């Protein structure tokens, strides 16, 4: 088996993550799109590890899984905090840091 299909799949997954971030306004979907992009990078790292025949790539992927877990905990806490403030999941509502109102 050649590595090209794996690379094509990882590329498509990364692109789908970007598409999800751009096109959706639901906070949970944005969060899961970020997770999808991180996971596609994990897939590329595993393929690299298999190509070289040593474990370094897999170890980076394992550390990335831990980083993904930390990111998930923080992002979910932020979503719960934001939902408690405004009772919505629309990312356009949360514009506290934007200058749109003051312009």
């Amino acid at each position, binding site marked *: 088996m050649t590595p*090209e299909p794996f*690379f094509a799949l990882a590329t498509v997954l990364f692109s789908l*993550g970007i598409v999800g971030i751009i096109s959706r*306004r639901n906070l949970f979907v944005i969060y899961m799109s970020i997770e999808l992009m991180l996971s596609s990078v*994990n897939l590329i790292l595993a393929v690299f590890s298999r190509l070289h025949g040593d*474990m370094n790539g897999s170890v980076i992927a394992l550390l990335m*899984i831990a980083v993904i877990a930390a990111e*998930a905990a923080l992002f979910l806490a932020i979503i719960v905090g934001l939902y408690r403030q405004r009772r919505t999941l629309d990312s356009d509502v949360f514009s506290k840091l934007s200058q749109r109102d003051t312009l």
Partner: protein
Amino acid sequence: MLENSIFAILALFLLFGSLGMISFKQTVFSGLSFLLAMMALAGLFALLENSFLFLAQIMVSVGAVVVISLLVMLSVNVNEQNLPNEPAKFRWMLFSAILVSPFALLMYKSLTHMNREFVETVAGYGSLKMMGATLFSDWVLPFEIVSVLLLTAMVGAIIIARKEPANDA
């Protein structure tokens, strides 16, 4: 041949899972599609003979991250009118897909440019023993930094998500 068909099935699950994740309106359906995609990704790790990464993906990504995301979705319990109103969702998706496609082409070309084949793996490749030997010889410092990162994320999550403001006045 068998490998190729297993890859095709897993890739199909992965693609439909992630497509469903970004297109469902109901958040819980997106979460369940994401669960499907993560499990298919674990299968791909197993196909790459990375048995420990497969276990870690199942235990951490599927068992902890996605399940806790589903728990948060269900406990937030958004009703229909609190969901964001996205009438032009699919038009935005098409637009952003066109926007992203040159970047995806660049990524694919640069990844396949190495032109390498899979090598025969040594005995014990992907096992817990070899993984641990690499992790605790060459990657000790990143491992320790990750432990500090996890602790920081835990403290931060507790402080962000608790109800009353901090009484540090």
